[in-house]
């Protein structure tokens, strides 16, 4: 139980870091890209920034799930490996539904 708790703490901290990184990076790219678009400076670069920011935003929650899968494998908690695996499969299903 004790080992379990510390694993959960560690996972929560890592998840927090992943989410913070994704939020700050995407918001910064959005802010710079928007200002560039509005003032008409380097439109192609601005579009690239906005598009990249959006992809990072969309990739952040899945990245958090991947981190969780890794932690549960490490703890050999197979029930949660299965559950987080289902989440990843459903997200993969969204990618398939989006492009095929």
């Amino acid at each position, binding site marked *: 139980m004790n080992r379990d708790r510390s694993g*959960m*703490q560690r*996972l*929560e*901290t890592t*998840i*927090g*870091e992943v*989410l*913070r990184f*994704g*939020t700050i990076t*995407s*918001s910064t790219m*959005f*802010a710079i*890209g*928007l200002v560039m*678009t*509005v003032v008409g400076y380097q439109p192609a670069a601005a*579009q690239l920034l*906005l*598009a990249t*920011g*959006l992809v990072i*935003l*969309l990739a*952040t*929650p*899945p990245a*958090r*799930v991947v981190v*969780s899968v890794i932690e549960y494998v490490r703890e050999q908690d197979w029930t*949660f490996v299965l*559950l*987080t695996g*289902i*989440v990843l499969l*459903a*997200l993969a*299903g*969204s*990618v398939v*539904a*989006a*492009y095929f």
Partner: protein
Amino acid sequence: MNLLNPLTAPLALIIFGAGAVAGALGVALGLGGGIFLVPFLTLVLGFPLKSAAAISLATVIATSSAVTAQRAGNQLINLRVGMVLEAATTVGSLLGGITAQLVAESVLRRLFGVVAIAVAAVVLGRVNKRNVILDPMVDPGRLGGRFYDEESHGIVSYRVKRLPLALFASFIAGNVSSLLGIGGGIIKVPVLNAWCGMPLRAAAATSALMIGVTATGGAIIYYGRGDLQPLLAAPAVLGVQVGSWAGARLAYGASVKWLKVLMAAILVIVAVLMFLRSNP
């Protein structure tokens, strides 16, 4: 779908402002901002509902990530419950996202109207509601949790009951999230609190964790189908971030009773407009 480009400075400002207001209201009322942002984008700016939903989902992801990053480590988020229920919400959001591509705009609008009425009812029902009272000595078990509650200045323990019901509510919430561009917390939080034994703050924090990955399931589909444009999502996301930040500072401690009644009234008007404008 060419009506949205090029992005003019005024349009970007309007979307940013709408996001800020929606984000602040969302925080003040304990809802996501999507339930306000989507109708603004469709009914006022004339975006197709699919575009509005896609933009709103991007803001839901940003809010979820920001809020969860901030809360990580304070025990309020129940990671285990979150991961269990996410298996249901993401499957729901995949199905909802596919469905959204198949049904007509008018159907989506009517569905939004129905959900807006339901949300209004939940908001009104909560006006005088207090938290579920819990036994502090309970053994949390495998799925339950324990956290320090700032309001009562004590440790709160809880067990999670009726897991199948929570899974079902999460599955429905995932569907609705993708179809209409809202987070779905409005469905999960009341169920988790009233029927599954979770304290309101833990239910809300856990739901905030889940809505990010749920919204991503839908947003990926909209993105791939060309309904999610970075140029429009960016000002909305920034607006909601700013609005939620401001809302969290303004709403704390203030009485939001009148605000709830006002917002419920607005949601009813939104519902009526969605129905009236669902016939092309």
